[in-house]
C-alpha cells in the first residue's frame, strides 16, 4: 500500500485525499518499544510516542468514519461535516450562544425551506427569491454573534502549525502541531469540539465546497480522470462515489443530515488519538483522561453492507477534457489483511517504483512511449479496493500504444517468476521507506491513527516486514494471473474532445 507522494501533497486546508495507506514502518522492535498505548473506559484509544529532542508535538485525532459510510441520500456529508467542525462550539466561536441559538434555528428553517422548494419544479420562483433574500438578511444579522474561524485563531496565536483535517473514504482526521507547552490547549479545544460543536455558517460552507469540487475535479484533468475511474470501476460499493459528493449532493445536504452524522459517529468508541513529540506518556494519559474520559462512548460505526459483485466484463470509458492524453487502468483486488494485499505492495515496487522498475525501464527508457507510469492502491483500505496504473503517453504515441505496452509487462509477470534480486530490491525499498515515514512526528502520528482505525491494531505496521518476507515469486505470479485479466479491469482515457479542442478566444 505504498502512498504516492503526489497524493500526500494534495492536502492543503481541508482537502480530501483518496486515502491510500502507506506501506510503512520497519524496525519493528524499536517501534513497538516506542509506542505507548492506552485504552479508556469509553472506548477511546490513545497512542503516545515520546520524542523529547524538539519541544513540539503533533496531535492526530482520527474518527473511523468516512464517505464510505454515507447513504445515497447523504453523499458528501462526511466531508461537509469536517468543514463544519471548524466553525466553533457553544463556548468558542460565539459572542453569546444563548442569544445566537434562536437565530441559527431561523436560518435553518428558511434554508431548508429554500432547499425543499428548489427541488420542486412547480415552486414559485418569486417565493424562492423572497426566501433567499430573507436568508441573506438573517445571515448578515448572524454575523454579530460569530467570532470568525476561532480555532484557527487560537491555535495560530499559540504557535500551532499544520492545523487541518482530511476526509477519506474510510476515516476522517483532525490534526495540529503545537509547541509542546501548549498541549493542554489542544485537549481543551478538541474535547469541546467533539461534544459541543455548533454547525454555524452552513449555507456559505456548502458554496465553499462546490468551489472546492470545481477546483479539484472539474478544472483538473488528473482529478477528472480519477473521479471517472472510481465511478466506473465500482458498480455497487460506495467507493464509487467522490468523497466530496456530486454538485447536486452538496447543494442539497441539510443541516439535519450533517448534525445526525456528527451525533451518530463522532464519539470515543470510534476515535483514536496519536500524540507524537515532546510529551511524556503518563502525562498525556492524564490529560486525555481529564478532557475526554467522561464523554459517553457512543455507538460503533456500522460496517458497509454493500458488496461489490465480481466484475465480469472490461469497462472502458473515454473522457474529454482540454488537455494532453492521460491513461488510467484499475484492477479490483482484495484489501488488507488479505495476503494478496502484501503481494500487490511488491508488484507495485517491481512494476512502478523507481528508475529500475519495469515500467520505467521498458516504457519510458526503451520504448519511449510514455514519460511516466505510476501505480498506487485506491481509493480506501477498509474494503476491497483497486490497483491503479496511471500513464502519461509521450507525443506522438497514443494512450492505446501505452496501454498495450503496460499489458505486455503484466503478461510477463504472469509467465516468468520474478528474480530473487528483484524481489530483494523491492523488499528493501518497502522496509526502508517505512523508516522514512517514521522520521517526522506527523508521519508517525498519521500512520498510527490510520492503521489503528482501519485494521484495529497499529501493530499491523510492526508485522509488516515479516509478512513481506514471506511473499514468494510464485505468489506474485499467481496474483498476476488471478487479477490482471481483462474482465477485472476498468480503463479510462482522457483526450481532447471535438468540442473543446481549443479554448474559445
Amino acid at each position, binding site marked *: 500500500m505504498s502512498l504516492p507522494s503526489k497524493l500526500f501533497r494534495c492536502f492543503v486546508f481541508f482537502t480530501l485525499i483518496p486515502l491510500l495507506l502507506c506501506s510503512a514502518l520497519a524496525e519493528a522492535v524499536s517501534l513497538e518499544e516506542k509506542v505507548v498505548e492506552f485504552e479508556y473506559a469509553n472506548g477511546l484509544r490513545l497512542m503516545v510516542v515520546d520524542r523529547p529532542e524538539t519541544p513540539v508535538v503533533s496531535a492526530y485525532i482520527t474518527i473511523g468514519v468516512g464517505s464510505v459510510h454515507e447513504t445515497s441520500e447523504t453523499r458528501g456529508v462526511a466531508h461537509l461535516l469536517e468543514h463544519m467542525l471548524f466553525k466553533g462550539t457553544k463556548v468558542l466561536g460565539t459572542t453569546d450562544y444563548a442569544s445566537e441559538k434562536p437565530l441559527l434555528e431561523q436560518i435553518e428553517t428558511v434554508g431548508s425551506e429554500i432547499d425543499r422548494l428548489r427541488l420542486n419544479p412547480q415552486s414559485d420562483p418569486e417565493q424562492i427569491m423572497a426566501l433567499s433574500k430573507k436568508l441573506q438578511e438573517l445571515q448578515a444579522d448572524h454575523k454579530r454573534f460569530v467570532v470568525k474561524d476561532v480555532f484557527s485563531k487560537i491555535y495560530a496565536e499559540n504557535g500551532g502549525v499544520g492545523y487541518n483535517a482530511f476526509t477519506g473514504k474510510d476515516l476522517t482526521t483532525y490534526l495540529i502541531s503545537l509547541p509542546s507547552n501548549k498541549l493542554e490547549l489542544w485537549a481543551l479545544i478538541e474535547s469541546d469540539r467533539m461534544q459541543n460543536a455548533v454547525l454555524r455558517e452552513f449555507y456559505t460552507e456548502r458554496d465553499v465546497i462546490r468551489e472546492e469540487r*470545481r477546483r479539484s475535479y472539474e478544472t*483538473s484533468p488528473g482529478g477528472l480522470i480519477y473521479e471517472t475511474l472510481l465511478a466506473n470501476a465500482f458498480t455497487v460499493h460506495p467507493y464509487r462515489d467522490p468523497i466530496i459528493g456530486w454538485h447536486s449532493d452538496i447543494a442539497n445536504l441539510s443541516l439535519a443530515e450533517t448534525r445526525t452524522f456528527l451525533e451518530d459517529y463522532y464519539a470515543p468508541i470510534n476515535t483514536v488519538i496519536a500524540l507524537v513529540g515532546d510529551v511524556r506518556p503518563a502525562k498525556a494519559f492524564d490529560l486525555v483522561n481529564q478532557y475526554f474520559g467522561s464523554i459517553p462512548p457512543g455507538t460503533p460505526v456500522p460496517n458497509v453492507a454493500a458488496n461489490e459483485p465480481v466484475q465480469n466484463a472490461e469497462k472502458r470509458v473515454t473522457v474529454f477534457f482540454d488537455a494532453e492524453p492521460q491513461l488510467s487502468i484499475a484492477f479490483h483486488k482484495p484489501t488488507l489483511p488479505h495476503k494478496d494485499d502484501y503481494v500487490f505492495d511488491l508488484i507495485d515496487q517491481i512494476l512502478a517504483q523507481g528508475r529500475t522498475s519495469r515500467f520505467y525501464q521498458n516504457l519510458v527508457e526503451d520504448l519511449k512511449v510514455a514519460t511516466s507510469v505510476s501505480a498506487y492502491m485506491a481509493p480506501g483500505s477498509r474494503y476491497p479496493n483497486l490497483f491503479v496504473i496511471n500513464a502519461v503517453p509521450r507525443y506522438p504515441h497514443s494512450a492505446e500504444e501505452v496501454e498495450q505496452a503496460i499489458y505486455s509487462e503484466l503478461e510477463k509477470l504472469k509467465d516468468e517468476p520474478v528474480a530473487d534480486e528483484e524481489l530483494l530490491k523491492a523488499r528493501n525499498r518497502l522496509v526502508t521507506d517505512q523508516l522514512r515515514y517514521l522520521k517526522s512526528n506527523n508521519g508517525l502520528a498519521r500512520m498510527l491513527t490510520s492503521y489503528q482505525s482501519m485494521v484495529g491494531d497499529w501493530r499491523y505496521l510492526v508485522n509488516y516486514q515479516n509478512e513481506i518476507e514471506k511473499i514468494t515469486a510464485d505468489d506474485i505470479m499467481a496474483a498476476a494471473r488471478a487479477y490482471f485479466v481483462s474482465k477485472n479491469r476498468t480503463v479510462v482515457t482522457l483526450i481532447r474532445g471535438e468540442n473543446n479542442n481549443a479554448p474559445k478566444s
Partner: protein
Amino acid sequence: MHLSLNPLNVFLTFVISVICCACTTTTQQPAHPNDLSFQPLVFHVPEVERVNLDSGISLYLREDNELPLIQLTAMIGSGALAASIDKAGFDELFAGSWRTGGTRQRTPADLEKQIDFLAANLGAQMGPYFTQIDLSLRAQDLREGLSIFADLLKDPGFAQESFELEQIKAQERVRRQNDNPGSVARRLLSAALYPHHYLGQSPTIQSIASVTRDDLINFHRTFFAPNNLSLAVSGDFDRKELIALLEQAFEGWPKQTVPNISVDGIITEQVGGVQVVDRPIPQTTVLVGGLGLTKDHPDQYAARVLNYILGGGSFNSRMMKEIRSNRGLAYSAYSFLQVGRRLPGLFVAGTETQNGKVVEVLGLIHEIMTSLRENPVSDAELQLAKESQINSFVFGFDDSHAIVVQQMHLDFFNYPDDYLSNYRNRISEVTAQDVQRIANELIRFQEQQVILVGDSAPYFEQLNRLNLPVKRVTPDGLE
C-alpha cells in the same frame, strides 16, 4: 511501559473507570482557553557544527541517532542564472542529466541499480543561485553511498542517452504545461513580472532542443569545485568516521577559481496589465501579483506580517475571511511573499472562483489591498500575525536535516550571524505603521499583473474597471 490490548489492558480499563468516577465529582476542567496557563517554552536555536575539510568543502553536521538513516545535501554555489536566456529549461536538463547520466566509473544503468538496491533516494535540482543534490540512505550503506555521491560531484557522466531522455521528457512537460489552469496562470505571471530575464522564461520545445550535452559539461567544468561546494549531513553517523570518509572520497579534487554570475537585469519599473486566457472550464484561476523584495530590505519583517494579514495567514487572513469564510466564493484564497535571496521575489494574491463571481472577487481583493495601504491594521490583527510567527518559529527546527541545510543556506547567502536568534525579536518589533508603509511600497495598483484563466464570457467586458490595459492571450502568452 508498553501497554497492549492483552490482560494488562483489562486492568487498565478498570482502573480508569474508577478514576473517572472520581474526576466528574471532584475536578472541574477549564472551559475556555483563557483559563489555561502554560509553562514557558524552553527553546534555543540548535547549534550546527561547521567543519572546513582539507579538500576545501564547507561541511555542516548534525548527528541524530533515532533512526538508522543518513541524509546528505551537497550544494554547488552556482545556478541557472549562469545559463543564457534563450536556453530556458537548462536548469531541469542539467539536474536531470546529472542525476541520471552515470559517472565516469559507473554506467547509468549500474548506478541506478546500485541506488535502487540500497533503497536510497537520490535527487538533483538547480535553482537560480545554486545547484543541489540530495541523498537519503540507510546508515549501514554510508560508505557505498558516499562513493556514488562523490563520484557524481567530481566525475558525472552526463551520458548521451540519459541527456536525450531528459530532453524528450522535458519537451513532453512543455506539451502538458497548459493542462492545468493554475500552472498557466503562474507561468504568465512570472513572464510578466520578469520580462527579458531568466526568472521569467519558461522552457519551450525549441529552447530545450537548443541545450546541448556540452553546455552541461561546461557548466560542470566551470563551477564544480570543492571550494564552491557546501555539504550538509544529518542522521545516524559517527562524526570522526564520516569526516575521514569524506576526506578520502574527495581527495585530490582540485580547487579552482569559480566565476561570479551576474544577477542583474530585473526591471523594477513595472507596467501593469490584465491577461485573460479563455478555457472551457467552470472556474477561473485569479492571480494578482507584483514584485516583492529581497532579504536585504529593512522592512522584510513588516512585509512578512503584511503578507500574513493579507492572505498568508490562512483563516486568520483577510482574504480567506472575506472571500471564503464570509461569502463562500472560493475554497482557497491566499497570498504569498517570496523574500528573494538576491533578486526580488514575488508578492502574489490568488484564488479560484466560479466564472460568474470573478468581478466580485477581484473587487474584494482590491478593497482589502486598498485598506492595507490606507489604514493601519488593527492591534488584534497585528498581534495575531506576530504571535503566530513568533510562537511557531520552533517548527523550523523539528527536522535535523532541515536544520543543517538551513544553516548552510544562511551562510551561503551571507545572512547575519544573529539572523535566526534575532528573528522573533525582529517580528515582535513590527508596528502597524511599518506594515502600512511596506503595504504602500509593495502594493502598487498601476504596476500589478492580473492573470485570469477560465471562461471569461461572464466578466471580460467588466475588466476595464481595473484601470489596467486588458488583453486576451493564449496559454503561451501570445496575443
